[in-house]
């Protein structure tokens, strides 16, 4: 029983991080049909932000890094994606690849290829034991931040005029413009939200890994895509379900695989993803959407 709860806690920690990665990717795809590969670089910028601002106290550094990522997300939309808005999905995707590689290489130029270590409070790497179940500080942090962010996003989408405009835009962007919703405002707002989510994810990843490096956005962004694809591209609830399944699947294979196969765990996890997509190519929650 204790063991089962332990696995559940591990899965929850992983799933909440994955949800923070997948939600913004699903949100941007839902609104403008863009698969934003450069989302990973927003996370990277957030991590370097924590490194740069490390001289001040941690809460202030975290806040400044968050602002930095939001500004970077807005600048990314304005400079790279607005000029190609309305283009084919392929053009948008290739643009996001270009932005991604550009930012990675700028980071390499500025900070070099060696990871920059970032000090985080030791309490976050400590483990507390509750009734035989070990919970890492970073797990509590992930789950807590994910719940706050997802809850905040749900309230924002359901109960604000801007959230309603975003929902309408995600369903039918042209019609939303026809009732007077300003396309630029909705898309900028969506990028700002995705930037905020990237900043929070960066904080968790830095606490976990202890450092910032130029290519650190790659794995998170792939996880984000896989989770959104599993759930059904463009669907927020689908992204959440995909993130939970991916987190739970990863922990499940970790536990069930024999020791000698454990290093190949991800092969099994993504094999499972492949099977799921073969059975349901549209994802778990199929969404209707119209491209901008």
């Amino acid at each position, binding site marked *: 029983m204790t063991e089962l709860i332990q696995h559940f806690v591990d899965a929850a920690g992983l799933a909440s991080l994955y949800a923070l990665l997948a939600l913004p990717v699903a949100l941007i795809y839902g609104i403008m049909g863009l698969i934003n590969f450069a989302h990973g670089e927003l996370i990277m910028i957030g991590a370097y932000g924590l490194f740069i601002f490390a001289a001040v106290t941690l809460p202030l550094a975290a806040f400044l890094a968050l602002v930095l990522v939001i500004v970077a997300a807005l600048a990314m939309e304005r400079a790279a994606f607005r000029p190609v808005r309305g283009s084919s999905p392929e053009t948008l995707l290739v643009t996001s690849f270009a932005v991604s590689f550009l930012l990675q290489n700028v980071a390499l130029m500025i900070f070099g290829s060696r990871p920059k270590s970032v000090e985080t409070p030791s309490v976050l790497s400590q483990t507390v034991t509750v009734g035989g179940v070990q919970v890492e500080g970073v797990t509590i942090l992930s789950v807590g931040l994910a719940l706050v962010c997802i809850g905040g996003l749900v309230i924002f989408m359901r109960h604000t*005029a801007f959230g*309603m*405009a975003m*929902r*309408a835009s995600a*369903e*039918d962007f*042209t*019609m*939303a*413009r*026809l*009732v*007077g*919703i*300003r*396309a630029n405002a909705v898309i900028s707002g969506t990028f700002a939200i995705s930037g905020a989510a990237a900043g929070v994810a960066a904080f968790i990843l830095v606490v976990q890994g202890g450092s910032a490096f130029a290519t650190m956005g790659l794995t998170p962004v792939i996880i984000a895509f896989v989770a959104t694809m599993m759930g059904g591209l463009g669907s927020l609830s689908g992204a959440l379900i995909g993130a939970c399944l991916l987190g739970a699947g990863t922990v499940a294979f970790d536990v069930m695989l024999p020791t000698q196969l454990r290093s190949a765990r991800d092969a099994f996890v993504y094999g499972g993803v492949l099977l799921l997509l073969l059975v349901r190519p549209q994802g778990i929650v199929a969404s209707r959407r119209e491209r901008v």
Partner: protein
Amino acid sequence: MLRVDGLEVRYGRLSAVKAVSFEVGEGECIGLIGANGAGKTTTLSAIAGILAPANGTIEIEGEEIARQSPEAIVRRGVALVPEGRRIFTTLSVEENLRIGASIRDDDEVGSDIERMKERFPVLRRYADTHAGKLSGGEQQQLAIARALMSRPRLLLLDEPSLGLAPLMVDAVFELIGQLRAEGITILLVEQNGRRTLELADRTYVIASGSLAMTATGPEDLDEVERAYFGGDAAVEV
């Protein structure tokens, strides 16, 4: 109110609408009829700002609006009820009404929503329901109510009777008559030629992307039938 002059709209190298010119005066109800693919929806889309015209001008009260964005044009007092209604199915009925008032920041939005619910009782009954659950006729009422929420001076209606049961069609045409009586200028695109001729002050017949004739009433029906396909086919209008 609305002046379209020499309008040409292209899809790639194909002209869907070529050299279309017409006027809609203040308070008028003007029909635009024609067969499928004649260019009716394309014309409305250009006026609403969804499609950029290749040539020609579109003026609202003397001001050029061609090539402006849809969100700018709706602020000029032009609201479109699109083909297929396109209500926001994932939003509630009430939210659809509220979002129709996106361009307004006055404090009468709430009382306007109340007025819409009085006018369309079904919208009150299903106010908190997802709009996607409404029937076709109910969705059409919602689409028109949503457009009215912006307090338009010119209402563009794209085939509002399409796919509706006969009783609903009657209700829709009656509603359009009421709106005209309230002083809203209306440009009505329809397949239902007879009903449009009965209602409209003037009806333009569009065939193969050009204006084929102008009709003034039901007495022109025979001629309209001939103009419909450029005289090649007999159609029931």
